[in-house]
């Protein structure tokens, strides 16, 4: 074996040259290299090659995007919110978040460093022939632990509700009427799938073709009648981007070899009952969750991928059975005693509730050490109605990226953390941006939320503040 013959050589490699090699390794590989032998560990440690402190390994809070508000709010964990949030929040809506970077329609921002790269222009229209009038979603792929400090933005076409029908607007323009639309009987997603991708390496929107490795989810016509749902999520995990697409399939896009796979939704999902499938990353990998029926039955699945043939299977991880036991909270009272703290965006202090009373209420909700701390156990009430016996809605906000915890909100006003391992439900406090009548009259709603894991890596062309000034 080749390795045996040259054994003595690599062990003779002078420290400077070994350091030169390891300096080019990803943080994940550096962490592993520390365990190869004592000499390597000493080298990595002595030269501080591994900067785990820069990596997105802790949860700082949640970005919450409300309908009707032009900016994104930040709900912080108490330990990181003792002072004003040190993060540069975007002045516009957050479209996606991935490992510490935030995607907006104008560019990519690192809230922890203020680094900002604007897009050279809007993303080009969908590249698949016949889909130029389709809508699209954008997703961010960034994994500084296993890959480089570069990131990519994927534009995924959405089949619009009017697909397959003659659009009234088409009659106004003969040319458009003649334009050939994507055939309803054709496979969806197509293969090759031509997608617009922005790469931080090139600073450009480019077209890339992705070849499907397994069968299609169906035809374009199968998604025809599906109403537009809330923004679907994507997850970056082990060199792939998992994008929640229409028909509740997950597209697993390989970030290295221009291939993709279609992953069907959990088979035991009752399509008639559930409201929305929620995709997320948590402790053991890629998860999905659904809340079903008026009883709010919460089910959580973990995606298992066979290392041999990449076949995938959803494993039911948690099932609340008849429904979530929901805390009784008086929604008519401004909820100012939750442990989490609101912080507004960059534009002004619209977060509102950073008053002294709340600052003094800080108690330890510490996601990284939650076993050690007493829970604020809310009173139990399973009526799912508030004090005025109105129906109470519960929706999923997101997954804790490192613990098996699902964040929920109740009627857009209270944040809840559901611990899968103990089935305990915890009150996070107010998630309503201020005691805004818009929200108490239930006119506003939460469009999407992203668990935020700050990262001090990634390469950016400018600072966000400079960009903001330019715009003014």
């Amino acid at each position, binding site marked *: 074996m080749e390795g045996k013959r040259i054994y003595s050589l*690599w062990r003779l490699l002078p420290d400077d040259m070994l350091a030169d090699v390891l300096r080019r390794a990803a943080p994940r590989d550096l*962490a592993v290299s520390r365990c190869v032998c004592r000499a390597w560990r000493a080298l990595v440690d002595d030269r501080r090659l591994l900067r785990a402190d820069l990596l997105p390994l802790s949860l700082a809070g949640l970005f919450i995007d409300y309908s009707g508000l032009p900016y994104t709010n930040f709900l912080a964990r108490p330990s990181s919110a003792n002072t004003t949030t040190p993060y540069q929040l975007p002045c516009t809506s957050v479209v996606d978040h991935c490992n510490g970077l935030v995607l907006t329609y104008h560019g990519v921002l690192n809230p922890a460093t203020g680094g900002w790269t604007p897009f050279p222009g809007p993303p080009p229209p969908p590249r698949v022939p016949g889909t130029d009038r389709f809508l699209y979603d954008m997703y961010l792929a960034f994994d500084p632990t296993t890959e480089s400090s570069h990131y990519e933005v994927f534009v995924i076409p959405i089949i619009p509700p009017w697909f397959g029908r003659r659009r009234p607007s088409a009659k106004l323009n003969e040319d458009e009427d003649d334009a050939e639309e994507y055939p309803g009987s054709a496979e969806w997603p197509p293969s090759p799938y031509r997608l617009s991708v922005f790469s931080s390496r090139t600073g450009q929107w480019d077209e890339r073709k992705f070849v499907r490795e397994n069968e299609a989810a169906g035809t374009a016509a199968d998604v025809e009648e599906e109403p537009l749902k809330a923004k679907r999520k994507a997850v970056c995990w082990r060199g792939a981007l998992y994008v929640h697409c229409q028909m509740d399939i997950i597209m697993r896009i390989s970030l290295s070899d221009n291939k993709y796979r279609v992953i069907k939704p959990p088979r035991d999902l009752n399509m008639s009952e559930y409201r929305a499938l929620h995709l997320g990353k948590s402790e053991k990998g890629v998860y999905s969750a659904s809340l079903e029926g008026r009883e709010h039955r919460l089910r959580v699945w973990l995606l298992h991928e066979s290392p041999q043939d990449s076949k995938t299977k959803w494993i039911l991880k948690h099932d609340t059975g008849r429904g979530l036991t929901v805390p009784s909270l008086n929604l008519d009272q401004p909820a100012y005693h939750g442990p989490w703290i609101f912080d507004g965006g960059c534009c002004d202090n619209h977060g509102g509730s950073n008053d002294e009373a709340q600052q003094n209420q800080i108690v330890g909700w510490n996601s990284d050490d939650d076993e050690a701390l007493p829970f604020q156990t809310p009173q139990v009430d399973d009526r799912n109605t508030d004090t005025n016996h109105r129906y109470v809605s519960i929706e999923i906000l997101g997954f804790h990226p490192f613990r098996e915890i699902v964040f929920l909100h109740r009627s857009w006003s209270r944040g809840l953390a559901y611990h899968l391992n103990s089935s305990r439900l915890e009150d996070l406090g107010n998630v309503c941006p201020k005691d805004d009548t818009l929200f108490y009259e239930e006119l506003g709603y939460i469009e999407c939320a992203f668990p935020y894991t700050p990262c001090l890596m990634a390469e950016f062309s400018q600072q966000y503040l400079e960009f903001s000034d330019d715009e003014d």
Partner: protein
Amino acid sequence: MAAPESGDGNNGAARMVTLISSDNTRFEVEAAAASLSQTLQLTILDGGGGGGDGIPLPNVDSATLSKVLEYCIKHAPAAANGGAPNATAVDRAELERFDNEFVNIDQSVLYSLIMAAHNLEIEGLQSLVAKKVADMIKGKSPMEIRRTLGFPDPTPEEQAEMNAHMLEYGWAYE
């Protein structure tokens, strides 16, 4: 592509220098290519290595030196242009293809190259080879890295130590 040195005296033809490997083999090469080595550049600027003289390289054997010069000759035109600015996308793609194939070699040659590139201070080559070795450990477990690089299997004591340290950065083993 004329090398910058070709102007002083040797009109038209590129200036040549001779390098002598540790096993006394003589290599005649364009000064522009040899000058990719920071170590050789000064000597060459001072007029060394020309005529009957050669520059002795006691730390580099002939097999390694011929490989090093293959790299230098390929990269010299782009380096003379000051790197990327004038290079077309095709030129860059061709260099990338060459680089990928160039390091697709036996580990012992790779080891000799990393030593020679460091010795001769050829920045591009140092980085190319170091990146290749870093790629060899990418995505592997500590045990797989040891086997890839031909380390002996750990003693039970070393194994216990490896296991203990693997707990320190649990996220790396997800």
